[in-house]
């Protein structure tokens, strides 16, 4: 537990101390002067001083949210199909989708970079969003498939004999029941987009589309690192992620363990 938490805590502390103190030797464990200097540098009202964190944050939020919503919609449709229908090649298609996800981002980034450049999608949020949607869809399918599977088939059947169309049955019965699980899948997709680096680092190179993980690299110059600044931006990155994960942790586990096309 100690090992698990320590690195995070250390970063958190470091974000609130001046850079000079971090570099001091011997180290002092607790900061003498708490400061929000680095945060003001990033988010000052008159515009940023050190790193345009506000723009990065905005990009991150827009890109992550949009791609999550689209991925969840598409993924949910797929998950429903896998959970409720039997069709030819079902397991093969499922496996195929998963394997598509297994292609490492960096391998994908080379051709994507060239293609996106041709299509004029480099440095646009839209370009990144499409990529994140595709990255997230297989996993969303895995999760939602599991959640829909946990809802007895009879639920939908009884709704349909109660006078619902299949869509009404889905909307009134299955969706509310799978709701928490789908929210969990959504947050998982959100986190993946929020934290992604390899692809975004290639596809976004301007303030207009850079996300936080890429922005973090602004603090890394050739020979020096602004440790305090990096810690500060790390805190900006991690806080939303922590909050979201804690909200859905329970459903996340059950979703992961039920998915994966049984039988």
């Amino acid at each position: 537990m100690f090992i698990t938490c320590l690195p995070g805590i250390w970063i958190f502390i470091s974000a609130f101390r001046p850079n000079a103190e971090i570099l001091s030797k011997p180290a002092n464990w607790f900061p003498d002067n708490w400061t929000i200097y680095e945060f003001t540098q990033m988010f000052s009202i008159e515009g940023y001083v050190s790193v345009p964190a506000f723009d990065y944050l905005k990009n991150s939020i827009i890109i992550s949210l949009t791609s999550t919503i689209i991925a969840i919609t598409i993924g949910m449709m797929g998950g429903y199909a896998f959970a409720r229908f039997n069709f030819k090649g079902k397991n093969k298609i499922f496996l195929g989708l998963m394997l598509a996800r297994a292609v490492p981002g960096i391998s994908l980034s080379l051709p994507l970079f060239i293609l996106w450049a041709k299509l004029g999608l480099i440095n646009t949020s839209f370009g990144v969003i499409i990529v994140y949607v595709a990255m997230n869809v297989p996993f969303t399918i895995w999760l939602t498939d599991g959640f829909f599977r946990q809802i007895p088939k009879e639920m939908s059947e009884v709704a349909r004999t109660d006078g619902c169309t299949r869509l009404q049955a889905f909307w009134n019965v299955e969706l509310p029941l799978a709701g928490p699980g789908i929210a969990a899948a959504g947050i998982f997709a959100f986190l993946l987009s929020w934290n992604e680096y390899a692809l975004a680092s290639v596809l976004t190179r301007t303030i207009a589309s850079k996300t936080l993980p890429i922005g973090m690299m602004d603090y890394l110059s050739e020979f020096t690192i602004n440790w305090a600044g990096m810690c500060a931006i790390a805190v900006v990155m991690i806080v939303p992620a922590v909050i979201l994960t804690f909200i859905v942790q329970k459903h996340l586990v059950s979703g992961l363990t039920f998915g994966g096309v049984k039988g």
Partner: protein
Amino acid sequence: MKFKFLKSPIMLIMPAIIAISIVVIIPLIFSFYTSFTSYKLTRPDSLFNFVGLRNYERIFSNSEWWWTYLRTILFLTIALNVELLLGLGIALLINKITWGQRTLRTIMMFPMMFSPILVGFQWKYIFNDNIGLLNNFLYLFGYESAIAWLIDQKLAMGSILAAEIWANTAIFSILLLAGLMGIPKDPIEAARVDGCSSWQVFKHITLPFLMPFIFIALTIRSLDVGRAYDIVHIMTGGGPAMRTELTWTTIARIGYKDANMGMANAMSYLSIILSIAFTYYFFTKLKASRQELGQ
């Protein structure tokens, strides 16, 4: 009738397949093509300079690359095994604890939320020879000469492994804990009555029940192994002297720094095969272990 498409599973899956085709399949086909050319980013016309298998021949005769390939496999094997064992241990421990289990589980999930790039940075910070937490800590105990964790050739790989393991053990322990909690009590009690020692109970009852969960975790992990790129990239950038390069960092270096796309894409293909092989293997194992339990 409206919404007829809800009756057709293929229509429901279509959007997913289209999205993946655009972002994964088409680029892969394109990169497959470029892997047979001498395409360099700096010289766009070279895209049509067909060189046949030359890129592959070069790679196959490049011992540097094969060392990297081997190192990647070794890296993944060690990481996954340690993560699995550690995760299993933690899960077993937490399962024994009756008090504060929820809190512990929540804390355990902490690393899962960290971006790999953040994990890399965080450990770079900890392992920093000058101001790192670890060296500061050792300093307290009198090791005054700073250890260059990330610069020393032998230590660097270990440091990266530590970061990787820290970041990903959580997935294992969380899933295995869920598995442990789901094991029915009856077979365990029956085995006890039948005279099994606790080790035998673990080996013959608990472990078979956990197998699907182990493979779920391995499958999920194998989907993400490529993310180790982020960690290595920020911690050492492949150095010192390329000793910590994994296939992915090599690809990035050759593709972007040297701008030799054709070669990089050829290498990509070899490492994609590696990723897919891992995933496929675990996925089929997962299905087999589920069948064994009759699920």
